[in-house]
């Protein structure tokens, strides 16, 4: 038994409490944020290392044995996601150094970000379905306030949409949990898996699977339920939308992956077919929504929705190879999408616009940053040898093996359309000459806006990580295939949590 699995939850909580002590000292709060999240990132590295070396790690909170107490479980999937959460939150804190005005910090920006991080990590680590609901709520409450902080009208309207949709999802999730407890009599995920695979599985399983699919689908921004995302993500300042884009929808995706591999046993083909169909529609509708968008961050939001489809395609195909592809894509997507939204901050700072037709000329004034964006855009579109390519390659391969030709066609078409959308942004924002509007906005034609280092360095680092993942894909591939193998081996998970008693 390892108690260090509690650390990714305890560290952000302590940082939040420490930040409360410095309520009137915004600068100190930012220092606590950066230092705390660095320590936290180191701990998440340690957890991944331990999980790789010693297998699935389990902590029974309060030493209550498995089905009775709350269990924290870290398998490779959870450990990788916790590590990425640590990375993204650290990045966000560094960027917040220059991008978040002290007025916002004075209203509790830093503690909220810590609590958001705690909620996300708790959701990734917990092995109990009701506890997952509680972590969802922790995360949501923090994200509601982060989204609304600032109090401008567009932000408040975005928050109302976001709150309403997420509360519906929570209510459905809660109802699902209630019925699940009523028919199975347990909420521990390993115990649930055991009961569902037992000799007499409960009759209501398809109903419950659908309830959870809808609830998690809303959180993951899956096809018919994604419209809240482009309505709300463009509103908050760039670091906030970056951390939301990188992590929040991924918690929904994680819950879907976990519940449909562990809790609801395979063999339920209708729900897998439904997920495949929905993932294809998510990809297509998302990217078709992105192409006509003139607002930079709305465009990125639709791209974000579209690429959720790739993460669900692996679940729909339901083979270890496809799952490995989806997980590779998940790692890439968290890094790339965060970076994309941070870039929107850089671009809006340089051009003082959010409309891409009124931008231009950044390549002339900032060639290095523009080069980074170009790499990132190619990576998001999945051009070899960048990180977005490998996940897609594995998914396409798995799709061809599974004779899912329609899905493969949709995946390739989405990649192409993403390339079109990204290149449109590249030519509008970076390549073409400054428009007259942009000149008026900047007042002097030869003005070179200095970019703050805390904004540039993290962005360049994230692009570097994406590039390295593309050039040396084998470590990430090994991680992804190991995680996918563990996900398909429910017995090992049950064994690790329940301690061998069947």
């Amino acid at each position, binding site marked *: 038994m390892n108690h260090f699995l509690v650390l990714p939850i305890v560290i952000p909580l302590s940082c939040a409490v420490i930040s409360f002590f410095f309520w009137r000292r915004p600068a100190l709060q930012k220092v606590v944020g950066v230092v705390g999240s660095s320590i936290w990132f180191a701990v998440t590295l340690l957890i991944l290392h331990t999980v790789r070396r010693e297998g699935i790690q389990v902590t029974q909170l309060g030493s209550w044995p498995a089905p009775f107490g709350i269990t924290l479980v870290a398998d490779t999937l959870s450990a990788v996601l916790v590590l990425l959460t640590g990375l993204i939150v650290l990045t966000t804190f560094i960027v917040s150094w220059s991008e978040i005005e002290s007025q916002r910090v004075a209203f509790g920006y830093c503690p909220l970000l810590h609590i958001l991080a705690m909620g996300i990590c708790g959701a990734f680590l917990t092995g109990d379905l*009701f506890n997952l*609901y*509680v972590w969802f*709520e922790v995360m*949501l*409450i923090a994200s*509601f*306030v982060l989204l*609304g902080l600032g*109090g*401008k*009208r*567009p932000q*408040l*309207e975005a*928050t*109302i949409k976001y*709150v*309403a949709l997420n*509360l*519906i999802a929570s*209510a*459905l999730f*809660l*109802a699902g*949990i*209630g*019925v699940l*407890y*009523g028919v199975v009599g347990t909420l521990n995920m390993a115990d649930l898996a055991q009961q569902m695979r037992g000799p007499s599985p409960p009759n209501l399983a398809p109903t419950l699977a659908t309830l959870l699919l809808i609830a998690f689908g809303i959180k993951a921004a899956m096809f018919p339920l994604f419209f809240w995302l482009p309505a709300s993500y463009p509103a908050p300042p760039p670091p906030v939308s970056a951390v939301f884009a990188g992590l929040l929808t991924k918690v929904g995706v994680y819950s879907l992956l976990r519940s449909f591999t562990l809790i609801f046993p395979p063999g339920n083909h209708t729900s897998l077919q439904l997920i495949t169909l929905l993932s294809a529609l998510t990809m297509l509708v998302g990217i078709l929504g992105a192409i006509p968008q003139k607002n930079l961050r709305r465009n990125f939001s639709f791209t974000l929705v579209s690429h959720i489809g790739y993460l669900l395609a692996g679940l729909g195909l339901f083979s270890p190879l496809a799952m490995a592809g989806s997980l590779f894509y998940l790692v890439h997507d968290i890094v790339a999408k965060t970076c994309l939204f941070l870039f929107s901050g850089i671009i809006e700072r340089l051009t003082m616009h*959010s409309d891409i037709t009124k931008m231009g000329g950044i390549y002339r004034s900032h060639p290095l940053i523009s080069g980074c964006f170009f790499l990132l855009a190619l990576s998001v579109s999945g051009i070899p040898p960048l990180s977005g390519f490998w996940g897609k390659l594995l998914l396409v391969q798995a799709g061809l093996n599974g004779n899912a030709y329609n899905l493969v066609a949709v995946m390739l078409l989405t990649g192409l359309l993403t390339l079109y959308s990204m290149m449109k942004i590249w030519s509008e924002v970076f390549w073409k000459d400054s428009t007259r509007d942009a000149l008026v906005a900047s007042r002097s034609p030869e003005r070179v806006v200095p970019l703050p280092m805390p904004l540039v360095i993290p962005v360049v680092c994230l692009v570097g990580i994406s590039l390295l993942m593309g050039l040396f894909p084998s470590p990430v591939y090994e991680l992804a295939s190991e995680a996918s193998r563990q996900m398909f081996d429910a017995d090992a998970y049950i064994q690790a949590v329940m301690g061998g008693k069947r």
Partner: protein
Amino acid sequence: MEVELAVVVGALYAAGFYMMMRRNIFKLVLGLALLGHAANLLIFTMGRLVRGHPPVMHTREIQLRGLFADPIPEALILTAIVIGFGIQAFAIVLVKRAHQTPWTDETRLE
């Protein structure tokens, strides 16, 4: 008793979704509250509605026998009520703030 509660839960869900589809932002918040109550009552019903059978073991028993009121759904509901209460309070303040904050020229441009 289960049948009556099932009807009540169904009615609460129906009322909640109906309220949310009205074109009034405050009714949206009321609808969300009703949905939360419906989910809580649903969990409560799943915990077996029996009277006078607390989950207490008598001496020399090693297992609870027969029908008994399951305490876990009640614990779950308590947690859910507290969370729902906090979120509803936030939602009401949010709606009020959005109602009071005017559109300015600056925000229109964004």
